[in-house]
């Protein structure tokens, strides 16, 4: 059994994992349709690895794909609104001890369904492996369950190794003990067992024959395991040139690294073996610049604010940095961090929250069930509580019975009704914020559950929101249609309806439509008309009656007073 040396073991692998995660933090890459980030992310992450892949060798950025799949499998990364980002579970993961972290990642790899190591054997290609790593049903490209079973079988056989062993000997051992695990070779005498369907030699036009090619296909798979997962997860020491492997024993390493905080807000991690737990904490409140052996972190206001949002205190982070730094923190850096902390703490936003509203003298500390307080850990805002919005089903399980739950991502119940005159009935216990906004905008309170439309408030709200939007909000909160009286008042006060003429006026009404049309075409006549009320009726300007009569008399038209029926001329 070999002891971990400079370039062997899980501690190297974990530094690569850290580098990939740091690129995720720095880039927050968008996840494309295939479920993976874009090429620029892969290039940047590959460059940050201890031994980057050469993409021209035909297997792409295998290491990055491997660490990404593992990180997702272990719950360290998640897809949030189409972007990849670290999870709270990643913080918990790096707070664990070295052995526990190694075990967690090994378990994640053994169960990982996103990876198919056969795809990373450079000598073969897999037309049977579709995009997003799904497998064609009529091909022999192994399903994720078979890949996982083969990983476990290979790991199990590692204990049988006695010291340094050639890869060829190990492949032979695997063929003897696990021949049918990855691809089923039990002969049923059918054509299906002549070829590896969907598995070809690189550049080949036909599927590989099964006879004599186990070491090429399954052997290639085992070699791929040795070159990355088994090596980087610390199962074995592997010499790629000599193609030999040996079981590895890796005690908890002594981490040796120093942190230098510079006045330009740059933090440099010096030394070959930084403690991943420390590196991770630093990366979570700064802008990491992953670059193999030299790790740099830029202290940045936005990242610092994000860390405070995750529940860290500014003083706690300053203290952490002070402890890590081999020299006292530069004064300007210390002041900046304190200043950022103060600014950030002065405005707090829950963009998607659950608000538990206390009513009256209700004490939520005693009224709410302990499991709810423990699980959601809501923050206090006066007598109320607020936290990030949980899953509605989980919330319902924790809520006290018969309490109203308003889900603002949906249409809310219409809880107000028009009452007599200009009043609205709005029972207090059913009111949600949208209804209360409408009431606050347009009404004054007259009783516990009764509100009256207020002219000045309506006019002000109409100016701020627009008359139509304001009316739509009120109608959206009403269980019944607006009463005619309410509607008239609302639309008049909001300026939708103009002024109404009330008073004496002179009218000109024609019996015949053609007569009215002919009159309307007279320019002189039009100077005496205030408004045409219909095709045959005109409202005359004040004092214009006599002039119109004289005008009509010239044209031979009789005029009457008081009745539209034909009668004696005036």
């Amino acid at each position, binding site marked *: 059994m070999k002891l971990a040396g400079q370039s062997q073991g899980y501690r190297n692998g974990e530094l690569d994992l850290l580098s990939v995660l740091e690129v995720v933090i720095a880039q927050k890459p968008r996840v494309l349709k295939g479920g993976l980030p874009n090429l620029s992310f892969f290039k940047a992450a590959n460059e940050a690895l201890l031994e980057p892949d050469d993409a021209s060798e035909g297997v792409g950025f295998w290491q990055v794909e491997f660490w990404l799949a593992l990180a997702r499998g272990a719950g360290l990364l998640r897809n949030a609104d189409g972007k990849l980002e670290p999870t709270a579970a990643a913080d918990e993961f790096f707070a664990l001890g070295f052995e526990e972290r190694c075990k967690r990642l090994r378990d994640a790899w053994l169960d990982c369904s996103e990876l198919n190591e056969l795809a990373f054997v450079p000598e073969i290609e897999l037309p049977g492996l579709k995009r997003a790593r799904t497998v064609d049903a009529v091909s022999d490209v192994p399903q994720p369950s078979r890949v996982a079973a083969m990983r476990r079988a290979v790991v199990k056989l590692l204990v049988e190794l006695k010291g340094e062993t050639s890869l060829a000997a190990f492949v032979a051992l695997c063929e003897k003990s696990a021949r049918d695990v990855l691809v089923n070779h039990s002969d049923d005498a059918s054509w299906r067992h002549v070829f590896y369907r969907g598995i070809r030699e690189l550049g080949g036009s036909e599927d590989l024959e099964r006879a004599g090619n186990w070491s090429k296909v399954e052997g290639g798979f085992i070699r791929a395991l040795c070159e990355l997962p088994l090596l980087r997860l610390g199962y074995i020491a592997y010499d790629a040139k000599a193609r030999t492997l040996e079981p590895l024993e890796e005690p908890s390493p002594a981490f040796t690294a120093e942190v230098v905080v510079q006045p330009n807000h740059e933090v440099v991690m010096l030394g070959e073996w930084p403690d991943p737990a420390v590196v991770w904490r630093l990366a979570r409140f700064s802008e990491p610049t992953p670059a193999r052996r030299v790790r740099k972190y830029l202290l940045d206001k936005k990242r610092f604010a994000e860390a405070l949002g995750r529940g860290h205190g500014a003083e706690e982070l300053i203290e952490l940095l002070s402890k890590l730094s081999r020299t006292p923190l530069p004064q300007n850096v210390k002041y900046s961090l304190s200043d950022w902390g103060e600014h950030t703490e002065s*405005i*707090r*936003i*829950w963009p998607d*929250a*659950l*608000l538990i509203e206390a009513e009256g003298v209700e004490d939520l500390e005693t009224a709410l069930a302990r499991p709810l307080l423990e699980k959601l850990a809501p923050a206090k805002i*006066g007598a109320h509580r607020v936290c990030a919005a949980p899953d509605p089903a989980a919330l319902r399980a924790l809520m006290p019975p018969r309490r109203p739950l308003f889900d*603002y991502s949906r249409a809310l119940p219409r809880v107000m009704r028009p009452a007599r005159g200009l009043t609205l009935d709005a029972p207090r216990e059913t009111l949600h914020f949208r209804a209360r906004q409408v009431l606050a905008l347009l009404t004054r309170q007259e009783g516990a559950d009764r509100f009256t439309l207020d002219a000045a408030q309506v006019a002000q709200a109409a100016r701020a929101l627009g008359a139509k939007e304001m009316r739509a909000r009120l109608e959206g909160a009403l269980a019944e249609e607006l009463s005619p009286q309410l509607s008239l008042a609302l639309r008049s006060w909001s300026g939708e309806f103009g002024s109404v003429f009330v008073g004496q006026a002179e009218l000109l009404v024609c019996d015949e439509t053609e007569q009215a049309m002919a009159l309307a075409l007279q320019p002189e006549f039009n100077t005496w008309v205030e408004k045409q009320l219909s095709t045959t009726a005109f409202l005359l300007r004040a004092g214009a009656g006599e002039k119109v009569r004289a005008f009509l008399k010239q044209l031979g038209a009789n005029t009457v007073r008081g009745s539209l029926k034909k009668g004696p001329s005036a």
Partner: protein
Amino acid sequence: MKFHLHVGVIETSDEATLTEVLAITKLEARVLLKLAPNVVIMEREDAQEALEELQRRGLHPKVSR
């Protein structure tokens, strides 16, 4: 007690800061309720808009998700 799910909440250290935030983000008219002099409730889309506007201006509030 009432449970309001999927709302946006903004809390500031004092009333003046809240007035400033609402003025900067031009969202005063969209406030659903002023829960306290330094706390407002909004639709979550409006709270997200407020957050983005503050960040565009180099202010980085504490965000609880």
